[in-house]
């Protein structure tokens, strides 16, 4: 019929389609403070929503990138207080460094306070470990885009799942070597490329090798270098939603980040308390002690305050950017194929 046809063409030619004529909506945003007139009960929607989300559970996918030996797996285990990284799940600690960058994802279900979370940790062994590291970020970028592609394919189905499985990388921890000097060219190259497709949180690994002054100076230098190179790490300035966000995030961006961290999954007795730490001849480094390192800041930032935001920025911005680009490319199936779960098992 007539109107359907024109809408079809309009949709295809990407003109802003005219929605069908609705009856006149006299938008009268009358600001009525309902509590003055008697309790209605619309504030119960918060509880209703909370109950529903608890029931469905959450997904979170975190990627760790950095040269081997920087303590990536340990840090992730420390973050989630559990053996969730690749190294803890039955792989040989003595295994050889791979000749190319590999992507290894491992998932666990963890629960706390009635909240169920499917946590996937994506490790990238081989990154930065070769003699020639040119383009070693490419397999990583490819993996990230493949997850967007998977989601997109599911989203455009006619009959689609109630909840589309989310394998997209919500957060990428980039481990900077604590040289104390400056960022390496590889660090800059990686972050330049990937900050456009994923939320990157740079961390300074093994920060127990620097004194407080060295740490402060190094952080300042790193921040400057990132700024000079136009690298927007998470939380990105352009996505601050309101003044409150901006104030909070400015402080994090300009003072706290990059977090200088130490990881450990061993506990020691300090002042009568059991703490996570690293034992050295000159003392015990307490991981969760803010005067020793910034691990607790990283943990609070990633898990306790910004976890949902990391997911939302991934979904509303990075994914949308990918989708818009894909749909704009004329005649465009991507050259990459998405491997299915069946293929995965055979790789073992």
């Amino acid at each position, binding site marked *: 019929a007539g109107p*359907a046809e024109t809408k*079809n063409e309009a949709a*295809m030619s990407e003109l802003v*389609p005219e*929605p*069908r004529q*609705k*009856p*006149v*909506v006299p938008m*009268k*945003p*009358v600001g*009525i403070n*309902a509590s003055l*007139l*008697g309790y*209605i*009960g*619309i*504030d119960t*929607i918060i509880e*209703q*929503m*909370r*109950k*529903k*989300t608890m029931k469905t559970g959450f997904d979170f996918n975190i990627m760790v990138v950095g040269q081997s030996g920087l303590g990536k797996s340990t840090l992730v285990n420390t973050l989630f*207080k*559990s053996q969730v990284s690749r190294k803890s*799940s039955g792989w040989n600690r003595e295994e050889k460094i791979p000749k190319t960058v*590999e*992507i290894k*994802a*491992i*998932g666990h*279900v*963890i629960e*706390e306070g*009635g*909240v169920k979370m*499917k946590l996937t940790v994506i490790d990238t062994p081989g990154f930065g470990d070769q003699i020639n590291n040119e383009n070693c970020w490419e397999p990583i970028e490819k*993996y990230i885009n493949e997850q967007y592609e998977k989601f997109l394919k599911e989203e455009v189905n*006619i009959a689609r799942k*109630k909840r589309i499985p989310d394998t997209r990388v919500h957060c990428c921890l980039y481990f900077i070597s604590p040289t104390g000097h400056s960022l390496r060219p590889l660090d800059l190259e990686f972050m330049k490329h990937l900050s456009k497709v994923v939320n990157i949180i740079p961390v300074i690994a093994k920060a127990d090798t620097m004194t407080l002054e060295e740490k402060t100076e190094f952080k300042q230098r790193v921040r400057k270098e990132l700024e000079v190179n136009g690298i927007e790490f998470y939380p990105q300035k352009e996505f601050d939603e309101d003044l409150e966000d901006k104030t909070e995030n400015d402080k994090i961006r300009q003072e706290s980040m990059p977090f200088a961290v130490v990881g450990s999954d061993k506990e020691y007795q300090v002042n009568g308390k059991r703490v996570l730490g690293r034992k050295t001849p000159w003392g015990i480094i307490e991981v969760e002690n803010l005067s020793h390192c910034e691990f607790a800041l990283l*943990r609070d930032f990633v*898990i*306790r*305050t*910004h*976890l*949902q935001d990391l997911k939302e920025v991934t979904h509303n911005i990075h994914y*949308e950017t990918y989708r818009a680009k894909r*749909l704009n490319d*004329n*005649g*465009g199936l991507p050259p990459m194929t998405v491997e299915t*779960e069946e293929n*995965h098992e055979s*790789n073992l």
Partner: protein
Amino acid sequence: SYFIVFQGEGCRTVPLSGHVGFDSLPDQLVNKSVNHGFCFNILCVGETGLGKSTLMDTLFNTKFEGDPASHSQPGVQLKSSTYDLQESNVNLKLTIVSTVGFGDQINKEDSYKPIVEFIDAQFEAYLQEELKIRRVLHNYHDTRIHACLYFIAPTGHSLKSLDLVTMKKLDSKVNIIPIIAKSDAISKSELTKFKIKITSELVSNGVQIYQFPTDDESVAEINGTMNAHLPFAVIGSTEELKIGNKMMKARQYPWGTVQVENEAHCDFVKLREMLIRVNMEDLREQTHTRHYELYRRCKLEEMGFKDTDPDSKPFSLQETYEAKRNEFLGELQKKEEAMRQMFVQRVKEKEAELKEAEKELHEKFDRLKKLHQDEKKKLEDKKKSLDDEVNAFKQRKTAAELLQSQAQQAGGSQTLKRDKERKK
């Protein structure tokens, strides 16, 4: 290459050795929603005079603007108004849509159509946004109808056929909550019979009304009980009367006062509880995951898209989009080609015409030329003959002159002779 291994999926979870802090996740999510604000859209379907606006005023404790409708509407229309309500830290954008003139016409065959079209239009608007290349779904003002309150006239007998027809058309598109309006017109015993009759008619006609969900243990019991009380018999009133020592919403009759919020008098409290305080989020979720998905699926199939082809590569919306676009372009090209052919044809024809004309001209020219030549020849011949005559004349003249001169010489003497002879 990569692989994903899931350990502990479904049953065994990995133990945590301390407090991680992701139990704050629901709070993080809820806080973001609160900052964003919520939308809730109610559609009231019912005949004029059944108290739709009054009930909305009563439910939301306020007087929404608007005058009562007349009975002389030519057709069914929908009137929509949006309000911003705030309670604690919750900002709700409430949209109330009401039918105007429903049931007033003599011929009600098409009465349901504007309602269905309105509901579809909201789905369509959302779908269009979702299909855009550059879209802003998380900031989209959702106008899809989350709940449809169907007002049944308190006749006490049974559902009207208009009600059955309309509800049947709406039940796959919206969550229907049937209510008996102005139920203070029916006695308690009649009400029970009425409810049973309505429920059985709905069932026998296959009308799917909204069921309050019973899958979550915390609300399963109350929802289950409430399901049995449908359709809710309601009364609306914004007038407050002093009953005892409290001010209450009520309607005063000579024989007594009907209290709106008294559960022994009517089901208003039940309606408010179910619609707002317990299931508002579920109504929104069902609208999005069930009704909207159905609309979307039907619409896309209608437009010619399809999902996985079982024996070959999966078709994606994008691919079919591309295929359709190419098809369209192909059509365009064909048309272009046809037009070009026609143009070429016309040119050829015109050329032929012109050639004909040219030929004629040439022929004419040739004819004229020949004529001219003939004329010229004639003239030349004439000229020649004239010349010949002139020459002949000249010859004769020369001959004559010669003769004359000869004659003169001889004739001089001749003449003298003649003259002498004359003298003699």
